[in-house]
């Protein structure tokens, strides 16, 4: 599989390294000559020193037979233009853009760039996750919140403790995906009982999440009290 990475910053560099290790055919495009030289010394791959928003540079990088393009520069407008060129000029089905400013997520989506990763948002979410001592927290967001993975810890005060899955009253837009029990996954059926120390994983969406949180507001009382 032939892929092109545009932008040789920290994200581009590490992505290049990972893809190389997995045996992909990768070409890197980077503007800064000094950065190019440094990466070339370390990684044996095709590196093109040039502007990734220039069609002739992209052609040099082999865009004509590329399968994936990853635009991971530090400028959102640059990443957007690269994805637009890839989509409209070369009919590349998979182009992924890095978004630096979360405010721009909506713009990328409206302009038809569907595969995006907002580095700032990911990091902010990870930090928020660490801060969040609630028993109910978001672990992973898919497709900008239309689907989220929620983790629920079962402590002594959890209202679901000892219940069978079939007896739980759940909001409409959610499903229990699995339970982690003593480091192995339990694949949930109706007759699965929820035990102390379980970690429940639920798939839901952003709009239903507050409902689930509310569900555990009282159920998670011992934990909530500690927080204060």
């Amino acid at each position, binding site marked *: 599989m032939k892929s092109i990475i545009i932008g040789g910053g920290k994200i581009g560099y590490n992505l290049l390294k990972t893809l190389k290790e997995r045996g992909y055919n990768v070409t890197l495009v980077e503007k800064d000559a000094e950065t190019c030289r440094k990466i070339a010394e370390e990684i044996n791959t095709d590196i093109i020193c040039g502007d990734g*928003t*220039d*069609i*002739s540079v992209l052609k040099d990088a082999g865009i004509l037979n590329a399968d994936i393009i990853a635009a991971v520069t530090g*400028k*959102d*407008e*640059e990443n*957007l*233009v690269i994805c*637009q*060129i890839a989509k*409209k*000029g070369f009919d590349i089905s998979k182009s992924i853009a890095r978004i630096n*400013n979360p*405010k*721009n997520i*909506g*713009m990328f989506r*409206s*302009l*038809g760039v569907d595969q995006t990763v907002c580095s700032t948002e990911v990091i902010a979410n990870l930090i928020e996750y660490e801060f969040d001592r609630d028993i109910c927290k978001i672990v992973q967001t898919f497709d900008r919140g239309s689907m989220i993975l929620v983790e629920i810890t079962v402590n002594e005060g959890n209202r679901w403790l000892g219940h069978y899955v079939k007896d739980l009253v759940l909001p409409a837009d959610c499903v229990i995906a699995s339970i982690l029990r003593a480091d192995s996954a339990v694949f949930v059926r109706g007759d699965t009982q929820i035990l102390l120390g379980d970690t429940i994983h639920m798939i839901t969406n952003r709009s239903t999440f507050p409902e689930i949180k509310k569900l555990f507001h009282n159920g998670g009382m011992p934990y909530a009290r500690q927080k204060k």
Partner: protein
Amino acid sequence: MFIVIVGCGKLGSTLSKDLSDAGHNITVIDRSAERLESLGSGFNGLSIKGVEYDSGVLREAGITQADYLLSLTNDDNLNITVSLVAKEIFKVPRIIARVNEPEKKSVYSLLGIDTINPTELISYIIKSKLEGGKK
């Protein structure tokens, strides 16, 4: 006419003042307050500081009512992004962007953005002056 001008460099500010003096309704957007100040007190349009392609900023500039959007910054990617947002999201009837690097013109045309290319124009003018002077 109601015209939104993006980029308040030499070209943007000169054109804003000219069009405003000619009686058009002008809003200028630039991320630098300093550059917006260069418009001076004589300019009687609206100036807005902010990220040029941000939907909120563009809405504040009145883009939904604009007859024209001119994207005149010295950064091609910025001009392309602004033009795409104006075209696809706000459906501005007429959009013209400034080309900075002549080789980037192909990107603008690929994405269906109308352009003016100052470098090309100036070199054409100089060339015709030179050749005109020969006779």
